[in-house]
């Protein structure tokens, strides 16, 4: 039986589009039909833009005929509903933005549109990206395609589930404390969080501005490299997007050039993204603090198996130490909530979004925000407001920012000894829906292995590396130094080629 079009990665679909074996309209219609048939049980999408996607697919078809296509022309993508899309509702998984139709495109959306990609719609997420399970969505939880009574991870759970269930070809998510890597791990797909500043945040609705970063969730590693190459690069509209004029420029330039070099010119003979380089001699650090108490034995076994695979490919394993790891969650839940409390001050019922009634302006604000925000968002706004309030700033925000510096120093010292690090993504496979909902702190602790990368600003990728006895995917996390994406992708690709976990698909036949 021929493989359905929906299950093809970008790297396998693009050459067929280039040769005219299949048309963008055909692919888009096929996936839209699959969404209509299957998303009822997954709930990956908040908004499906059927008419928009079909119009974009027709444009892509014309562009392919004109010979002006890129490898993304006609590729159906799902966008996490936290990136604004001109004319297409953007909710952030929140009641407060339920009817918000942005008047402009995020820079990443603009770049993907310019490349000819097709936007199928907007996918589910924890409200304002605050959560690890996609249960904090005003539009209902997303279900893990591998076991529907389990969470898909979060906050980019809609992205990960849509990619795993073949409800899109690839997706963009955002990662503030693990929100790309953790759902990718729980759904058995590839998820890349780039170096802070590599991808523009313009049009990414802000949660914690010094931690947020957009990145791809894909069916295979080459697709992540391809999408990154299209969305990376300085944007004058985001003052925190890295400007090579100022320090560390050579690593950045090398990375951008490296990404370009691995994508040959597109046309009927397109050979695909080339990450095919040996990893022999690559020094892979194994941080000892990431193993031990609290790590599920099945995850431990899968990661140790993955380390052996990397060693078998010629990588040199060495133990490293990140001594401040145990403080990362605490530092994160001060820094992130403090930034969130000021970022979310803008939702006041005046310029856009929900408005509730009130006797006066103050009451209108308070009622709007009480009705518009879910419990987790309110909890984090409260925590952040408290941490920044008079008399507490030094004890909380300043202290956490100092610990953040110590965490970054840990990574700098470790990367002086190794090229990248290999760790688990999450201490356990996906947990059951509802299991941790009543206890926010336990939920926060599940982010222990992903949060440090955001605090330090370094890149990380999750690649499938095993399955639990219950059939839930397990991911391997590779972490690199700032602008070390090329090495990460190369190692992840070598690992992927040596294993077949990424080829398995969840069964959605019923």
């Amino acid at each position, binding site marked *: 039986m021929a493989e359905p079009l929906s299950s093809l990665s970008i790297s396998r679909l693009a050459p067929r589009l280039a040769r005219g074996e299949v048309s963008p309209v055909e692919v888009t219609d096929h996936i839209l039909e699959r969404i209509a048939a299957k998303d009822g049980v997954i709930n990956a999408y908040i908004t499906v833009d059927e008419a928009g996607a079909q119009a974009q697919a027709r444009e892509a078809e014309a562009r392919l005929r004109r010979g002006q296509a890129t490898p993304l022309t006609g590729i159906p993508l799902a966008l996490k509903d936290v990136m604004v899309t001109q004319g297409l509702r953007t909710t952030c998984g929140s009641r407060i933005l339920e009817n918000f139709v942005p008047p402009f495109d995020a820079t990443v959306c603009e770049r993907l549109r310019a490349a000819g990609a097709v936007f199928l719609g907007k996918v589910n997420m924890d409200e304002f990206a605050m959560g690890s399970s996609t249960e904090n969505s005003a539009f209902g939880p997303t279900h893990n395609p591998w076991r529907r009574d389990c969470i898909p991870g979060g906050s980019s759970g809609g992205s990960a589930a849509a990619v795993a269930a073949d409800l899109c070809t690839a997706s963009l998510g955002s990662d503030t404390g693990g929100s790309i890597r953790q759902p990718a791990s729980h759904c058995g797909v590839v998820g890349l969080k780039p170096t802070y500043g590599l991808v523009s945040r313009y049009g990414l609705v802000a949660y914690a501005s010094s931690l947020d970063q957009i990145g791809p969730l894909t069916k295979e590693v080459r697709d992540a490299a391809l999408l990154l190459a299209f969305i990376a690069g300085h944007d004058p509209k985001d003052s925190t997007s890295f400007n090579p004029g100022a320090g560390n420029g050579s690593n950045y330039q090398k990375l951008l050039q490296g990404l370009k070099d691995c994508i040959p010119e597109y046309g009927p003979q397109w050979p695909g993204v080339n990450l095919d380089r040996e990893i022999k001699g690559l020094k892979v650090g194994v941080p000892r603090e990431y193993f031990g108490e609290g790590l599920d034995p099945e995850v431990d076994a899968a990661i140790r198996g993955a380390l052996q695979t990397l060693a078998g490919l010629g990588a040199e394993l060495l133990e490293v130490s990140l001594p401040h790891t*145990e403080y990362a969650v605490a530092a994160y839940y001060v820094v992130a909530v403090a930034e969130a409390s000021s970022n979310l001050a803008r939702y006041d019922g*005046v310029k856009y979004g929900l408005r509730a009634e009130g006797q006066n302006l103050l009451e209108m604000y308070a009622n709007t925000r009480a009705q518009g925000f879910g419990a987790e968002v309110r909890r984090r706004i409260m925590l952040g407001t408290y941490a920044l309030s008079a008399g507490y700033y030094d004890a909380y925000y300043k202290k956490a920012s100092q610990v953040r510096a110590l965490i970054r120093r840990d990574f700098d010292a470790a990367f002086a000894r190794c090229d990248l690090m290999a760790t688990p993504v999450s201490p356990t496979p996906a947990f059951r829906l509802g299991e941790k909902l009543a206890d926010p*702190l336990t939920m*926060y602790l599940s982010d222990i292995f992903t949060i440090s990368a955001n605090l330090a600003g370094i890149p990380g990728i999750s690649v499938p590396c095993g399955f639990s006895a219950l059939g839930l995917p397990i991911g391997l996390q590779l972490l690199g130094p700032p602008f070390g994406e090329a090495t990460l992708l190369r190692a992840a690709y070598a690992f992927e080629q040596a294993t077949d976990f990424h080829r398995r698909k969840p069964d959605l036949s019923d």
Partner: protein
Amino acid sequence: MALTREEVLHVAHLARLALGPQEIELFTRQLNDILAYVEQLQELDTGEVAPMAHVLPVYNAFREDVVKDGLSRDLALDNAPAREEGSFLVPRVI
């Protein structure tokens, strides 16, 4: 430093959040749990560590002041819950 019910109400006021009676109780408990966990940061001696607010060196981004098209007034008002005569409409303030 345990948060009292009064402090929770004060913070809710600062954050412009209306809280129901049950929520006050729940949030007081949950916020205290989280703050107790965060307390472990105090174990670390950070006396000489400069706080890190940003992972990359941040520089002022200067540019020429050029006139460009912005959002039209209508487009800017399109998402407003209430508008009147080209302005955002809010409850009476004075």
